[in-house]
């Protein structure tokens, strides 16, 4: 569970293996717990990979879904205010790129939730996971 200010976001993966097999199904759900009075404009869910390291960064979104809350649809906002509401997601993982823990570059997979409140800055929460079982790199001392 993560919280910034009073808004809390929980990401739950249905299964939690040490690593996911490429081509397998990843499913889960997320829950938003804004404090009373907080209104949300939209929530975006991305299943993506990105690189971390010394050089230029790269990233790609494999799966994306957006949940928009219209200002007029008071029912949606009221539901969020009063009780936890879970939003499911599901996607078939690709074959590549596999998670990799290198020295110069690392490849990370994650489920990222981006919340856009009506007021204030957006909130981003990530749930990392591993795709494939590539062993981490070892540094060669010359």
């Amino acid at each position, binding site marked *: 569970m993560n919280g910034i200010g009073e808004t809390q976001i929980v990401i739950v993966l249905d299964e939690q293996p040490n690593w996911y097999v490429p081509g397998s199904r990843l499913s889960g759900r997320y829950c938003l717990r804004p404090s009373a009075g907080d209104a949300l404009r939209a929530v975006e869910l991305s299943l993506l990979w990105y690189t*971390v*390291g010394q050089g230029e*960064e790269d990233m790609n979104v494999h799966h994306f879904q957006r949940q928009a809350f219209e200002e007029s649809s008071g029912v949606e906002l009221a539901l969020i205010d009063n009780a936890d509401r879970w939003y499911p997601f599901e996607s078939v993982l690709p074959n590549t790129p596999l998670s990799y823990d290198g*020295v110069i570059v*690392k490849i990370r997979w994650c489920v990222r939730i981006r919340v856009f409140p009506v007021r204030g800055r957006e909130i981003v929460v990530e749930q990392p996971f591993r795709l494939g079982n590539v062993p981490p790199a070892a*540094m060669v001392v010359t």
Partner: protein
Amino acid sequence: MTITDTARHDRETLDLDNPFSTRRLRPGAGPFHFGPGQSAERLLRRLEVLGWRAEIVGPHGSGKSALVEVLVEALTRSLPANRQRLQKGRCAAPNESGQVGRIAGDGRSVNEPLPVMRFGLGRGIRQLPSDWVRKLTEVAGRNRVPRPWREVVRRWQYPLARAPWKPAALLVIDGFEQLGWLARRRTIRGVRTRRAGLLVTCHRPTGLLPCLVTMHPEWETLWQLVCRLQAGTTARIEQDDVTGSFVRHAGNFHEILCELYLLHERRRISSRMD
């Protein structure tokens, strides 16, 4: 159903991710460390005093690009200083995007944001795009000097820079020294005739623009940065490492942080194998 402990994953990711990686160091990723008595508001005020044309001088890796990022961000967001100016009736309120409008009284819509055109030179790029003048004209529009002042300038040779004006746009050039002597002069002239502002970074004073600030790489700043980056992770870089690297690379933050990245990786892998 297994509830995933997001906080635990975050800790693991933080520990796996090198604190000196690009994503943690890119301009805007963290707060900028200003020198004593400096702030974004003060520098913007000084930029205004200098006629919206100035240069940020400093050696390679001293934080010029990071400072530009902070200033551009401050220009396009609602700063306390801007709000204060708003109360004085000099500046427009931020629009829906949070951008600050131009000064009222120049005959324009006060809620228009100040457009910023930004170019980064270096890494093989040694000239501005060929259509930069057209683009600047598009965003700046016809921001002409008010007629009475045009007369004053023409008759009395009054310096144009002293005429009361506000830029219609701000051109930001990171790596101004990459341009040749003639190209620099052409750029300044092009910006001046379009009544836009110009903010550049360069390694040495060009002598063509007033200096907004001179950047000096300092050990204390570097150590504070290292401490901030390592906060929440397993600290693998000690004070001695920073001192040695600072001396070896003569204060070049880029080179120092590259070295610390590799040192951090080496120690992380060693600790994993132990």
